[in-house]
């Protein structure tokens, strides 16, 4: 299994959705709603990424009492990784916006 060195868009969205405790299937609908259908995650992709995030301890089970209805939430490590990726993406956006406005950084 490939590890998560740099967050792909799918992983980024799923981690963002899991900043608050949520069921797996609720993640898909939240992402679809928030992006107004522009970004959709397939069920097999979602399940693969959830397993991977658990494995890398970026998310954890929120409540282990009910094993049938699993609720996940970001771990402290997950929050840190997501925050770092937000910064990486902010640099990308700023760079592109500056370029479009025609400003030169020099």
């Amino acid at each position: 299994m490939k590890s998560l060195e740099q967050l792909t868009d799918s992983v980024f969205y799923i981690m963002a959705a899991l900043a608050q405790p949520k069921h797996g299937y609720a993640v898909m609908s939240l992402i679809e709603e928030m992006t107004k259908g522009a970004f959709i995650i397939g069920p097999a992709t979602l399940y693969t990424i959830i397993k991977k995030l658990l494995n890398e301890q970026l998310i954890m089970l929120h409540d282990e009492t009910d094993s049938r209805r699993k609720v996940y939430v970001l771990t402290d490590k997950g929050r840190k990784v997501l925050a770092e990726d937000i910064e990486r993406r902010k640099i990308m956006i700023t760079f592109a916006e500056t370029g479009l406005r025609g400003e030169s950084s020099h």
Partner: protein
Amino acid sequence: MKKSKYILSNGLAFAEEKDMQMLQLKGTEGWHLKDFALGGYRLEKRECEEVQYSIDYRKLLEDDKHEYFEVFASSGWSHVCSKGDMHIFKAMPGTIPIYSDANSTIDKLSRLARPIYCVTFFFLVTTIILWALMTITDGPIQQISKWIVIFSFVFLIPSLMMVCSIYYKKWKQRIEV
């Protein structure tokens, strides 16, 4: 009239999409996937219906099954049948694909590949050892090793072809990223 029939698979390691399209086509003729069968699929006769099929490979613990099928169901993919680590789902045409990015598609191919790599490795080692034995011995041992080499070679070739096919598919996914 016959209520059920059998169709042959093209080999999931080679032509998974072809198999799924074949099942979809059969659906429009009123033949719907019921279960896996040896080297193919068992279909049953119902009304004609346009449905699409997708397959996923995953080792599921008893504890994970409910959640796994629920995630698929909530995006419109209902579970049809499973055999071992293979699970087939169906959905209305136009439903989002079960894999939506290249990275997870590559992971899927790796899960499909694992048992194939093991089998290939087994036959490769058997062929090499028995080949050596065949060359250095004579008499009945040489005869026996010769037959085992031929036998394992017959299995080695298709499994090597499967390995190549999976490598090719993974490579194709990577350049699409």
